[in-house]
């Protein structure tokens, strides 16, 4: 195969780009009937629309059975990429050109650099040109014998944070004593500047990781902050309600396989409703008989969680289910070569905050918020004031459960959708609610983010396992000092 690719590149020039791309992306097929190479684009289900790999003419619709996929492995992929980079170096679209140059960053070879030297003089886009100079400079620093060329090349590295830059500088500094001192000095100052820059971005990155972990904690704990924090139900089935939300996402995707991007948006209300309904069912069926016996709710909801888990195992099988990530949630938002934020985490973070805000509004702006607190503080008095306690209980539990469902949607984008999903999160969610202070939503918010950030700043130093242990120990010690969490209920009655 490699030999063939080189010949293709030499012979075809830019014409083979679509073919190479299709091969790279796994869209290249052999039409069994004619043994012709074709590009196939799935039209949903088993159908494929075929086109000619060279001129793009449509060849009609075929089914999977008519086609044989051309499989490639990593080695071929690496080669294809290099080839595409070289072929598209002069493409019209600056973005394509930029991608092509970027591809050469890692290990520029003499041929490619020569291509670049030719291209850079005619490059109209400043950004692309800069990148091209960077590749050339990296090559020169590594290979040139002439100190002045190398010094000049160093100038092109200024202000860049690509890891290749750092490697080049380090390599230069690691050279023997015959490197001119001026060059060394220059490289040294650039390297320290670069490193402090990278350290800063690493700090930002860790912070984001922490906030992102915090947002997951917040999401899983928010529902519990209501059912447990406000209503006082020790809801061991909370994790399973999250799980139901995730499975709902899966089912929604099954129902609309061609609209993965949209399906997540549909799944949000769907998961809320499914989990909320199950929550209302649990409340009406079990919890309402346990008023004033909060500890017993632990036992009952533990039983319910077992049943829900096994039910999911029976219906969906014990295997994990596949939930796809829509395109708009994949990849990352790149600020520069060392700092980027992954989209899925970013959306989850925004989503968590949005859920929190909406919930606050519901609790603050509708009578429900006041009534549920009244009911939880003194049920019979609430009834004597005309509060429909049964309705309030059902709605509140439904709300908390629905939010658990929303957490499930988010988690389906981050982790396994399987019967054990809930168990994996139940402990953490209780931890966050208690750490923040039972009955205080702001506590849950601050608690979630604090634990997330603490965890992520510890992790690089201690490793993931120890970080987790340390956070737990921290919670234990924290509670000793603040026995009612971060935001305790105050006043005479709280004692």
């Amino acid at each position: 195969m490699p030999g063939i690719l080189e010949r293709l590149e030499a012979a075809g020039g830019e014409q083979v780009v679509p073919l190479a791309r299709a091969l790279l992306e796994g869209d290249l097929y052999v039409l069994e009937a004619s043994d012709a190479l074709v590009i196939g684009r799935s039209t949903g289900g088993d159908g494929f629309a075929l086109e000619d790999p060279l001129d793009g003419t449509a060849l009609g619709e075929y089914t999977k059975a008519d086609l044989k996929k051309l499989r490639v492995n990593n080695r071929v992929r690496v080669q294809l990429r290099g080839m595409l980079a070289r072929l598209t170096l002069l493409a019209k679209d600056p973005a394509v050109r930029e991608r092509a140059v970027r591809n050469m960053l890692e290990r520029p070879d003499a041929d490619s650099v020569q291509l670049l030297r030719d291209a850079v003089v005619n490059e109209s886009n400043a950004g692309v040109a800069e990148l091209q100079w960077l590749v050339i400079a990296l090559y020169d620093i590594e290979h040139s014998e002439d100190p002045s060329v190398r010094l000049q090349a160093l100038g092109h590295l200024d202000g860049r944070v690509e890891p290749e830059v750092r490697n080049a500088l380090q390599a230069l500094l690691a050279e023997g004593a015959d490197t001119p001192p001026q060059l060394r000095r220059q490289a040294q100052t650039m390297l320290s500047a670069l490193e402090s820059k990278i350290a800063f971005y690493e700090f930002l990155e860790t912070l984001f990781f922490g906030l992102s972990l915090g947002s997951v904690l917040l999401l899983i704990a928010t529902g519990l902050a209501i059912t447990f924090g406000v209503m006082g139900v020790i809801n061991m089935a909370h994790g399973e309600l999250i799980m139901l939300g995730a499975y709902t996402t899966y089912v929604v995707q099954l129902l609309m396989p061609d609209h993965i991007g949209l399906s997540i948006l549909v799944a949000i209300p769907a998961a809320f409703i499914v989990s909320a309904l199950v929550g209302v069912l649990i409340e009406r069926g079990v919890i309402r008989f346990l008023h004033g016996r909060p500890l017993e709710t632990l036992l009952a909801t533990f039983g319910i969680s077992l049943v829900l888990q096994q039910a999911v195992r029976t219906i969906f099988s014990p295997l994990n289910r596949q939930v796809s990530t829509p395109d708009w949630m994949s990849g990352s938002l790149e600020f520069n070569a060392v700092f980027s934020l992954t989209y899925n985490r970013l959306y989850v973070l925004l989503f968590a905050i949005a859920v929190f805000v909406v919930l606050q509004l519901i609790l603050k702006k509708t009578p429900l918020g006041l009534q549920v607190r009244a009911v939880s503080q003194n049920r019979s008095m609430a009834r004597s004031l005309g509060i429909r306690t049964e309705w309030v209980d059902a709605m509140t539990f439904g709300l908390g459960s629905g939010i658990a469902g929303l957490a499930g949607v988010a988690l389906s984008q981050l982790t396994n959708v399987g019967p054990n999903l809930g168990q994996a999160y139940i402990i953490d969610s209780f931890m966050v609610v208690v750490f923040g202070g039972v009955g205080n939503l702001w506590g849950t918010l601050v608690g979630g983010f604090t634990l997330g950030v603490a965890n992520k700043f510890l992790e690089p130093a201690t490793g993931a396992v120890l970080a987790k242990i340390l956070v737990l120990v921290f919670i234990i010690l924290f509670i000793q000092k603040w026995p009612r969490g971060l935001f305790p209920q105050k006043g005479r009655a709280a004692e």
Partner: protein
Amino acid sequence: MISLQKVNQLYGGTQILWDLDLEIARGSVTCIMGRNGVGKTTLLKCLMGLLSIASGSLTINGEDFSRRSAESRPRAGIGYVPQGRDIFPLLTVEENLRTALAAGRSPGGVIPEKIYDLFPVLKDMLQRRGGDLSGGQQQQLAIGRALVLQPEVLILDEPNEGIQPNIVKQIGDVITQLNQEEGMTVVLVEQKLGFARRVGREFRLMEKGRVVASGPMTDLSDDLIARHLAV
């Protein structure tokens, strides 16, 4: 307007109310008296639907309420100030008052200003937690909260427990005022004779879960008191 006939009530195995009969007339101020533990609070809780009655009937405004939920009482215009006040401790004073809006009897869903006129201290403390208030302040809050309902009948269980004298007097005045100016029916459990005599128009004496004597307040003789209230 409130009528109980042959009401029996049990806590588990112990019977507290025995074939109890009670009539409360519209516009009256009725004072229920009796020693500790005779079942006064229990009677009021049955009235409010907080305890279910084993047998007997309870009608309010001619409607049968003996099997209706507690929530239906405030909707029918019954306000309740329980013994021990039952303030929501973690809600602010304002929120405590707002809870009573749930019955939907306050026009526009706002707290009537007159409550602050009656109990100015509440206005000063609107943002304090109910549970932090002193006992007497809580009592005022409890009455205020019942009044947010705009009730036709106001039921008070020992409203003067722990209240400073000038406010006791004020509460008495409020009750009288509400009764006379708005025609509110008042049912009052009270141990202190002086207050009962001053505010009550009718009395009912209870003994061991039964009403054993009743009549207009003027008929409450020393003899009756000695017989039913002395220890």
